[in-house]
């Protein structure tokens, strides 16, 4: 046996050097799946082995939340070793590029995290990479504890494709109550009221609305759309029954343009949390951001309700514009049983109540233990049960990646040329190109 290596012909050795190069470049993830099948012989066929879970939760509350949920997983399924394949990078851009590469080589992890809704469906269902989970939902009774609106938005043709772990709310307007009192304004309930309030604030030398880099303007745009069109009109835009060229949409674009004029002029250089800091510092009155901003305000030693306040974004009272992180079951998962075990934990009350208080989000299930959550989160849990659930655009619920990218470009162009007509046309064209508008 040992002699064989020495007789290895030289030309082959050279070739193998090249082959190693090829291997290193093309299949960075080959070893984990090999590891999955290469576990000690004793573990048998009734489960076991390693479960590789891919996410972009590498820092902060997200990573800690994952750790907390992992503890639940390991207590319930001690036969599995958990392999954390997290890739760092803002909102998963890098992680998704890595994932796309692995999937194109048919080397999927056992499960991966993605934004529930069309971001997953448009990319991974369309290419046949993930399995429907209807049986698992029925087996685990999740249909009874998760809102119907949520199930609709994360399904395609009656098939449910992912297990939502958490729920964030996108349409939240944040402010510091004492500052508002000092400037003599109230949180506006509609966009018309907002524009009046903004004029008052600007006259007082305060930036009315703090905004950050480009994606936060798309985030603002979706709340303006929702606030102007209402939940039915907003939903219709995404299921193909609405008309992007309608006067209501054009009015919403017009409002969006007016609102943008009241934002800080250095917005393109700020991240969302730096924009929130303007509100904390009293340089700006409001910021519209998803409820992960709550964690930021708490880090600044502000108390919910007294130190910082929140309302639904103008015109969106009674609507819960959600986004959700969820886990999927890939076609050809190396350790399918392990992946299903992970999904069961991700959808369970224990798993969600371990993850969410740490991450600063609410459980997708309506039976979470309210004593674990703070003042903001319990109010969000109330709204989650009572409000009409609609999906977020920026965070992947209502439009697939290709459609969203077209909208992102259209809004980016609007930021520089403020041409409302062109934005309207580009939005209609984007819907047609996506196929949702029968284009």
């Amino acid at each position, binding site marked *: 046996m040992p002699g064989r290596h020495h007789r290895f012909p030289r030309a082959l050795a050279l070739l193998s*050097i090249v082959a190693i190069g090829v291997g290193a*470049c093309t299949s960075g993830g080959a070893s984990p799946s090999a590891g999955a099948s290469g576990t000690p012989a004793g573990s048998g066929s009734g489960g076991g082995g390693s479960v590789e879970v891919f996410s972009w939760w590498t820092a902060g509350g997200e990573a800690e939340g994952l750790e907390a949920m992992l503890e639940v997983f390991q207590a319930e399924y001690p036969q599995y070793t958990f392999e954390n394949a997290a890739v760092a990078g803002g909102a998963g851009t890098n992680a998704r590029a890595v994932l796309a590469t692995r999937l194109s080589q048919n080397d999927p992890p056992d499960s991966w995290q993605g934004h529930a809704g069309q971001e997953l469906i448009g*990319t*991974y269902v369309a*290419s046949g990479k993930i399995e429907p989970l209807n049986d698992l939902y029925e087996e685990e009774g999740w249909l009874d504890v998760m809102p119907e609106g949520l199930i609709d938005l994360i399904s395609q043709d009656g098939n449910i494709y992912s297990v939502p772990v958490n729920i964030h709310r996108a349409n939240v307007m944040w402010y510091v109550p004492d500052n508002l009192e000092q400037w003599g304004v109230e949180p506006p309930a509609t966009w018309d009221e907002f524009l009046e309030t903004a004029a008052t604030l600007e006259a007082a030398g305060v930036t009315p609305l703090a905004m950050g880099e480009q994606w936060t303007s798309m985030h603002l745009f979706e709340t303006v759309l929702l606030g102007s069109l209402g939940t039915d009109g907003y939903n219709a835009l995404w299921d193909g029954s609405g008309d992007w060229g309608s006067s209501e949409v054009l009015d919403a674009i017009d409002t969006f343009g007016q609102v943008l004029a009241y934002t800080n002029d*250095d917005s*393109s250089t700020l991240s969302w949390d730096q924009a929130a800091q303007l509100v904390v510092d009293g340089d700006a009155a409001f910021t519209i951001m998803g409820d992960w901003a709550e964690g930021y305000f708490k880090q600044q030693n502000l108390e919910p309700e007294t130190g910082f306040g929140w309302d639904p974004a103008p015109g969106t009272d009674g609507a819960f514009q959600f986004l959700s992180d969820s886990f999927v079951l890939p076609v050809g998962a190396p350790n399918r049983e392990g992946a299903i075990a992970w999904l069961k934990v991700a959808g369970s009350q224990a798993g969600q109540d371990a993850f969410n208080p740490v991450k600063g989000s609410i459980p997708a299930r309506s039976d979470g233990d309210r004593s674990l959550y703070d003042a903001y989160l319990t109010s969000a849990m109330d709204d989650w049960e009572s409000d009409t659930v609609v999906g977020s655009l920026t965070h992947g619920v209502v439009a697939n990646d290709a459609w969203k*990218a077209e909208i992102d470009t259209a809004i980016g*162009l609007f930021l520089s040329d403020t041409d409302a007509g062109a934005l309207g046309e580009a939005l209609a064209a984007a819907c047609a190109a996506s196929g949702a508008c029968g284009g």
Partner: protein
Amino acid sequence: MTAIRRHWVPVAMLLPSIIAIGIFVYGFIAWSGRVSLSEWQGLTPNYDWAGLANFAELIGDRRFQIDMRNTLVFTTFFVVGAVALGLLLAILLDRHVPGEGLFRSIFLFPLAISLIVTGVAWRWLMNPSTGSRSSGFNLILDGIGLDPLVSAWHTSDPPWGMAFVALPAVWQMSGFTMALFLGGLRAIPEELKEAARVDGASELQVYRRIILPLLRPALLSALIILGHLSLKVFDLIVALSGKDLRLDVPAIYMWTTTFDANNFARGAAIGIVLLLSVGLLVIPYLVWSLRRETDL
């Protein structure tokens, strides 16, 4: 036998590189070319023939038009700035200043920094905030009473924002052009300059008539190297401004359309356009330098 051996050994030594370059450079170029002519969108490869449709779409694409304009603005300011500053530094150093080695190192240091780091540092320096939140250059300018110069920097209205993006690139690369020009200056025989001075040429005339014409090869190298760098610019802008469309360039569009929108065909088409534009710049240079080598 020995003759065969003499030929075989160098070929065998080169073979791995030839194979690797064949696959990873030319093979992938060909593959990108094929993808750019396909209808591939989404994660599943789709090689259905699309002809030049992706390229035609790019020409009509407003975002791509902005990208081309931005590239043009950036290239102009970056190349002119880096060449002018590099030449000036080289001429100053060539005057035999004391501590020349120290200055040379100082001017070359920025080259050792990755463009990402440069981008992040200059993002702070060129912070466009004013008033109580101003920082970086704006704070300095305000502090020394030059407040009319307080600027929105790279967030200025298009296309001038792009000209400010060229600032950090000039800062980073002018040391490199300085080194190129300094090498060129040192290669000019002292006798030529002496002869001109003996003939009564002023110092300015010596530079205009003798030195600058002899620096032409160094200038050409600088133009080619800076030019293809600026066509490919990606990291600096991502670090400086994220994915702000006002400062978008083809390489960033290529990345977002490929990996955020899964539009692999369009991404490949942008890649091919980039390759061709770099080729337009580099191939004449290669031909020229090969011809010069054979002349020698």
